[in-house]
């Protein structure tokens, strides 16, 4: 087993545990925004996509990478916007009546 794998597993499980703790405290009320939010965060695959699309690679790889950038950026931009749009609507009593 390589050291990189061990390090990666440490990171994975600590993040998973942190995520579990934090996410289990999100109330039912906010579960749909939570989904849109984690969806936006998962657009972090943009990180890998950028390297694939910008590399000095063959045409096939470049095109596939560009499609990946496209898909990931839709998630990032759309996900954050819609999360915020939903959260803006959640008002306590005393809001617009």
């Amino acid at each position, binding site marked *: 087993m390589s050291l990189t794998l061990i390090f990666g597993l440490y990171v994975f499980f600590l993040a998973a545990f942190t995520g579990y703790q934090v996410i289990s405290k*999100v109330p039912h009320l906010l579960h749909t925004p939570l989904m849109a939010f984690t969806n936006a965060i998962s657009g972090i695959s943009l990180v890998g996509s950028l390297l694939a699309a910008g590399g000095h690679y063959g045409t096939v790889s470049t095109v596939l990478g560009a499609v990946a950038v*496209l898909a990931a*950026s839709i998630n990032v931009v759309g996900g954050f916007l819609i999360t915020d749009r939903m959260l803006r609507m959640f008002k306590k009593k005393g809001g617009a009546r």
Partner: protein
Amino acid sequence: MTLSLAETFVQLLYLAASILFVLGLKDLGDAQTARRGVLLAEVGMVAAVAGTLLYGVGVTGVIVRWEWILVALLIGSAVGTGMGLWIPMTKMPERIALSHAFGGLAVGLVGVVEYLEHGGAKMSTLQITATGLEVALGALTFTGSLMAFGKLQGFITGRPVTYVGQNASNMAMIAGTLGLIGLLVLQPDAAWAFYAVATLGVLLGVLLVLPIGGADMPVVICLLNSYAGLAASATGFALGNNVLIICGALDGFSGFLLGMMMSKAMNRSFSNVLFGAFGAAPETKAVTEGAAPAGPAPNVGSVEEAAEVLRAARSVIVVPGYGMAVSQAQHAVRDLANVLQTHGCEVRYAIHPVAGRMPGHMNVLLAEANVPYDHLFDLEVINDDFSATDVALVVGANDVVNPAARSNQSSPIYGMPILSADMAKTCVVLKRSLNAGFAGIENELFVRSNTMMVLGDAKKTLMQFTAALKE
């Protein structure tokens, strides 16, 4: 090993991004701070993208071409902006399913590029395993989410599609995929095996979602969320990138956790949802297709009669369901509540965890209609109050108020916690027809003596109530 100054800077940016994502999620735990959380995560995302561009150009020299990146980013941002700003709240489950598909697609394609460019023989055991899993999960998430989207949109039947040997063949395909990844570890240059893994992933996505019925959509959407996250994490392992591992784990566990909650709210195990094909039972179908259900006939009331009941009520609990979303009746609900409140009637909303097609679906719809969120109550909080309530107004909900879950051991939903709408003095049920709901189960509530059915489009009916009460 010591990193160069530039590398250190990039890694610190990634670290900052990871911390911001976790803090953002933490802020999402409270409606008061949630918007700040989104802002934190947005800053994190900018840091991660900037770090990647710096890394690609300055440190490794991998990024040499910009035109593709720029064009894709521009189009993606434009489409994302459109989807973010103009998709109606009633279409939220469809949007979430679609964006899971994009997530899976992005990750899957990155995996293919990795294999094409760095691949084959030169990959370490870790890299090839991670890339294999990444591509399989990415492909599965992509087609699975498209299937979920199709079912939600009605392109594909919402009924579970089953056939003989379904579970066995799916299991065989999963085993085959894992076997092929194992083979790739031994022979990393076996390109055919790599593409076979991708193909099996594509097929599995379709076949795994096919038998899952519309009523189980909340769980499916959570699961797809989880798969998308795990696929992103696998990418992190393949690229040796911690921010991807962390975000993938956060996303993966959020989906998993929500899925568990949804399953628990339906009193069913995860595996039961995945392999149970809820609502496919032939005997319930026969009942649905029968001309007249056996037993007492439901008490169908007119709009005027129901409006009279509401006029006399001092307290009303609204139970919203998917039918409210379908007829976009959330604003009409709010208008009726306003009129009732001016008459001195107390109006509250009871939200079942699995009402609708995704977790928290009803909360969002009611928020859109300006219903304050402190008027919304979870099942555990409000359930005992029904017996002291004059009217339970059920708007297009079915299974979540079906008393069979409490009493009928042979019912497929037996044991599922339900909202006790039947305990209210009068239960007014708005429904389009007397047909069974999405899960295909008859509802005893509709034939109870204290229940009044008002048939027709929920939005129209609610507007007629409001008009009648204003007179």
